[in-house]
């Protein structure tokens, strides 16, 4: 590859990638802002969320067991 070809390639590359106008460096370090945004996002729930319906079911189950303790061994039999 002679010097003419090198210059030609350099010229084509410069045409394909025009120089960034202005200051190519950001005015400040953006990484702390990224970290702040990550921390500010609410954590996603690990699994399914507890609902009011489930609370009612659990309350009914506990009430039945409390009112009729004889049901405890029967429930254990099926677990």
């Amino acid at each position, binding site marked *: 590859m002679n010097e003419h070809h090198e210059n030609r390639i350099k010229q084509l590359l410069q045409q394909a990638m025009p120089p960034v106008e202005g200051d190519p460096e950001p005015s400040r370090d953006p990484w702390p802002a990224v970290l702040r945004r990550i921390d500010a996002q609410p954590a996603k729930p690990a699994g*399914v969320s507890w609902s009011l319906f489930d609370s009612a079911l659990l309350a009914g189950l506990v009430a039945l067991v409390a009112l009729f303790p004889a049901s405890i061994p029967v429930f254990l039999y099926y677990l």
Partner: protein
Amino acid sequence: MNTHPYLRAYLAGTFIPTLVLPLLLTFVVIRLVERVPIPVEQALIFPMTVVPLLWGLWNMLWLCSNERTHLPLGLHGAVLPLLLMPAGASLATCLGVLKIGADDVVWFQVAHVPYALIAPMFLAALAGYYLVWKYIVGFLNRLLGIA
């Protein structure tokens, strides 16, 4: 962890009944020490053999059918008592653990359950299974990478 999903589903399904087993075995120890005339050993056959097996197979069935049915795991688990309760009651009757009387049924010779209480207990079992499957088995399925 992409291999053997059905084995992992089985293990996740048997987790809860396996945890309950040591609790049930304490009844055997109490019976042996205190010489309580309750047929605990016969009563343990069902929860020690059938229940863990069915829980594991039921979770495998959910894994197998979930792509087609999209049935939530809690509802899938709540269907299981429909199979377990008649099977358990039949086996308990055969083994003398459950006696059917005129006004009530007697479990383990001590726990008298009136007939009027059977329907609420059945509904409570459905609710309990729904919650256990939705939260505990679901958590284990997610932990083992199959949900």
